Each structure stands twice: as structure tokens, then as C-alpha cells.
């Protein structure tokens, strides 16, 4: 089994790394792949609540690294989705409790056993980020279409490139289609032009993200929503399926309607 180890990172906090890690992991597992989601934000544990597994934690990633328990004892199995596991962060320790070498060894110990390892990185560019990225081959950089997030993403991409990650791709989160249509928000193409990195997915701002996080239920298990669809597509692209990126201005009902009107009403105009 060829294990793909992907770090989800961003530089800036609050752009949706944990949401992306949780929902992408859930979706890949729903597709039948075995997935371990690792919370690498030592001291600020969060992936567990977003995934809805907070009540079932016994051991954590630091326990595994310090050999206080076996890896299998620390993995929390999701009961809703087969083959989805969480390796939680330690809450009462600091990021100094682990180093890059240990994280790399931990990741390597998962190779061959699972299809995917998805690592939720802490914000920032310091040791926490470096530890999270140490064992990964690929990186997903989550960015929102605003100046501070894009700027921080640029720093992170520079650091990832110097760390020789095999592939780096962007996930543009919290896209607001109406604002894009009226030219009030950076477009997805602006973000990828500026950062010179290709885009793996576009996630529209969607109330369902808040609702699913409140409940600790993965989006893709709930009712269909624009964000759920976005995660299905991102997972599909990771799996090598040829799924074209949507027009970011069309990702809400209004945009879809306008798109349909254009499709039926146009006479040789631009599509």
C-alpha cells in the first residue's frame, strides 16, 4: 500500500485548516480509503471536536511519540465512517514536546498501513508547523481570498518549497460568489496567479460548515450543500479524477441561476 502523507497548512490562523483536514479525511474514508487524521497542533487540540470524536480520546500523539502507549491504542476510530481514524493532539503539553525527527518517524511508521495520512498543522511558521510538515510528502495550503491570508500563504509556500515537498496545492476557502461577481473580492485566479501555485479546490462560504462543526459531523455525511460538494470534488482530485474547477462566481444559487440563463440565452457570447 502506497501511503500518501499530506500536511494541511496555511500560515495564518482561522482560515479553515482544521475544517479542511476533518472533511477531507472524512470524504476520503467515505470513498473507501483508510485515513488517519493527525492533529499536530500540540497544546491547542481542536481536530477532535470538529470531527466529533472528543469524548473518545484516551491517548494522544505525544503519548505515542514518548512510547507511553502503542499507536493503535491512541488512534480513535470513527464509528460513523469505516476506516477513519484520529490521532489527537496532546492538550496539556506544548509544541516543544515533540520534534521534527519524531514526527517524521511517526509518519513513516504509518506508511504501508493506511491509504492516507492527513496532518492538521498549527498556524504560524515556527516549530509547530515544521513538525507538522516534517513527515509529509505533499502539502495543501489553505488560503482565504484576503490580503493577509494570501501573504502568509506565500511565506508558508516558500518554506515548504525549501523543505522539498513533492507537491504543493492551494485550497481556497470561504469564497463568496456574490462578492466575486461584483469584483469586491480577490478571485480564485488572482490568488493562484499571485502565489504561482495551482488550485486543488474552491470552497464557498457556507452556513453548513458552521452547522456541521457545531454538531461534530462531517459535511459530506449531511445533506447536500455547496461546501460538501466542494470537499467531494477536492477528494476526487486528490484521487486523480479529472474534475474541472468550478467558476467561483457560480458557487451559490444565484450564480448557478445566472449560469443557466447564460447557457440558454446566450448567442455566441462568452460562456
Amino acid at each position, binding site marked *: 500500500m502506497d501511503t500518501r502523507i499530506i500536511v494541511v497548512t496555511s500560515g495564518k490562523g482561522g482560515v479553515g485548516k482544521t475544517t479542511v483536514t476533518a472533511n477531507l479525511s472524512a470524504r476520503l474514508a467515505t470513498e473507501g480509503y483508510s485515513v488517519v487524521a493527525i492533529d499536530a497542533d500540540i497544546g491547542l487540540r481542536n481536530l477532535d471536536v470538529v470531527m466529533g470524536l472528543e469524548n473518545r480520546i484516551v491517548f494522544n500523539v505525544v503519548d505515542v511519540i514518548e512510547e507511553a502507549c502503542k499507536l493503535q491504542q491512541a488512534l480513535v476510530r470513527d464509528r460513523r465512517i469505516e476506516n477513519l481514524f484520529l490521532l489527537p493532539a496532546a492538550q496539556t503539553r506544548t509544541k516543544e514536546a515533540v520534534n521534527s525527527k519524531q514526527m517524521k518517524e511517526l509518519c513513516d511508521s504509518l506508511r504501508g498501513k493506511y491509504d492516507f495520512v492527513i496532518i492538521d498543522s498549527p498556524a504560524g511558521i515556527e516549530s509547530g508547523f515544521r513538525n507538522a510538515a516534517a513527515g509529509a510528502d505533499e502539502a495543501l495550503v489553505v488560503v482565504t481570498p*484576503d*490580503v493577509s491570508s494570501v*501573504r502568509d500563504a*506565500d511565506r508558508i509556500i516558500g518554506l515548504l518549497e525549501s523543505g522539498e515537498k513533492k507537491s504543493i496545492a492551494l485550497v481556497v476557502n470561504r469564497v463568496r460568489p456574490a462578492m466575486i461577481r461584483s*469584483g469586491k*473580492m*480577490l478571485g480564485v485566479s488572482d490568488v493562484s496567479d*499571485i502565489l504561482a501555485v495551482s488550485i486543488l479546490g474552491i470552497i464557498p462560504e457556507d452556513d453548513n460548515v458552521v452547522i456541521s462543526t457545531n454538531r461534530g459531523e462531517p459535511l459530506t455525511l449531511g445533506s447536500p450543500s455547496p461546501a460538501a460538494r466542494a470537499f467531494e470534488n477536492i477528494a476526487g482530485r486528490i484521487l486523480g479524477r479529472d474534475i474541472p474547477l468550478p467558476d467561483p462566481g457560480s458557487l451559490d444559487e444565484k450564480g448557478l441561476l445566472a449560469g443557466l440563463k447564460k447557457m440558454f440565452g446566450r448567442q455566441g457570447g462568452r460562456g
Partner: protein
Amino acid sequence: MGFLNRFFQGESSRQSARKRLQLVLIHDRADISPETLERLREDLIRVISDYMVISEDGIELELERDGNSVALVASIPVLEVKRQRFRDGDR
């Protein structure tokens, strides 16, 4: 004032975000680490030494910033220019 100007010129906030980011990233990216600069210096010496003998100690390398642009300025004292000869790749 800048804000008012943009308002009256009708530049969309998307365009201003894009322009400002491009500018700020030029500066961010130009802040290269001393190690990177040292690697660049070594690479330059290696490449230039194929063509001329240079004084390695006399090399000055810096990034100069001027408004919207950044320039790599190198001063490399040449001691001797080598006679041109064919290299393997040129044949």
C-alpha cells in the same frame, strides 16, 4: 487620501487587493536569508569561473529596493578573462 482616490477612480477592491499583494510580496520574497544569499554567491562564482577568473573575496552582492522594484546588484572584480573555448555542450 489614497482610499479616496481609489474610490473616485472606481478601482474595484479586488484590483487594489491584487496590486497591493503583488507589491508586498515582491518585498517579502526579496528578504532572502543569508544562507540563500551565500548559496547564490557560490553558484555565481561557479558559473562565472567558467568564463573568467574573478576575485572571490571582492564580490559584493545585494538586493536593492527602489519603490516597486527589487534589483540584484552584484559587483564582481574580474582578474583575468579566459580564452574562449568550446565546452562539451556547445559541440
